[in-house]
């Protein structure tokens, strides 16, 4: 194993990361944000990294209602 790395993201970088992961898997980023906010983590395994990044944001972040 290589040494571990820790990445620290700004809010905008987190949002961009979720968008990237959503589009990479063929999903609408807005749908992924809405699903996360609704507790409906569909495509769970495939999209868990995106949901994990959503969980880093405050629950009232505007991206969840855009």
């Amino acid at each position: 194993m290589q040494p571990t790395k820790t990445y620290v993201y700004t809010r905008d970088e987190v949002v961009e990361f979720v968008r990237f992961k959503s589009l990479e898997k063929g999903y609408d980023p807005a749908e992924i944000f809405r699903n996360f906010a609704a507790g409906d983590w569909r495509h769970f395994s495939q999209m868990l990294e995106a949901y994990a990044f959503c969980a880093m944001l405050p629950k009232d972040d505007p991206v969840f209602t855009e």
Partner: protein
Amino acid sequence: MTPSSPSNWSSTVASLRTASDGRLAGGREAPGHFERYVNLLFRLTVAHKDSAIRLSRLAASSTVWALTGGHDPRGGGAIRLTDGRYLRLVALLELDVSAGRQLRFQAMTWQYQNAIDDDSWVFRADYSRAQIAAASPPRGHLHIDGTLRHPDVLRPKQPLGRVHFPCRRPTLEAAVVLLADEFGVPTNAPHEVWRAAVAEHEAKSARLFDA
């Protein structure tokens, strides 16, 4: 002393113990200890020497963390294994403020797959502390990609890979044992070394899941 002798692994085993204690102690250092624990666990067992994991968090908050296979944030989250295949790993960790800032899994998935992308998977374990879909599968469950000898036991057009086999706490130690003992993935440390380490720490890892 040969490279594979148990004594060569004593410092790794000691570091694993320290990291294990640290992840269970809670507080802001716990995620870092957990990341180190996972690194050392896989180093002892089934990880290729070039494999990696990473930890991610928001700058403004230190209560939610993502642990993912690989160093490349735009990669698929896979850890390269000693057999040339991959284990895709994503874990959502949170410091539970209602429980003294203890580290908890909110969600996790690990998947054994033939290629670095996830089109050719073999088995997968999923865990979510919360409900993850309207259909509400068990919090912890295992999927297997295969074909039944008696496919008529499933509903029409339901592949085996969509069946949720309940498994309460899919620990990473369980993943390692499954890979090494059942799928023959070579381990880096001798059997008696990594087996003793897994036995020492797996029960403790259960504390990171739901009560």
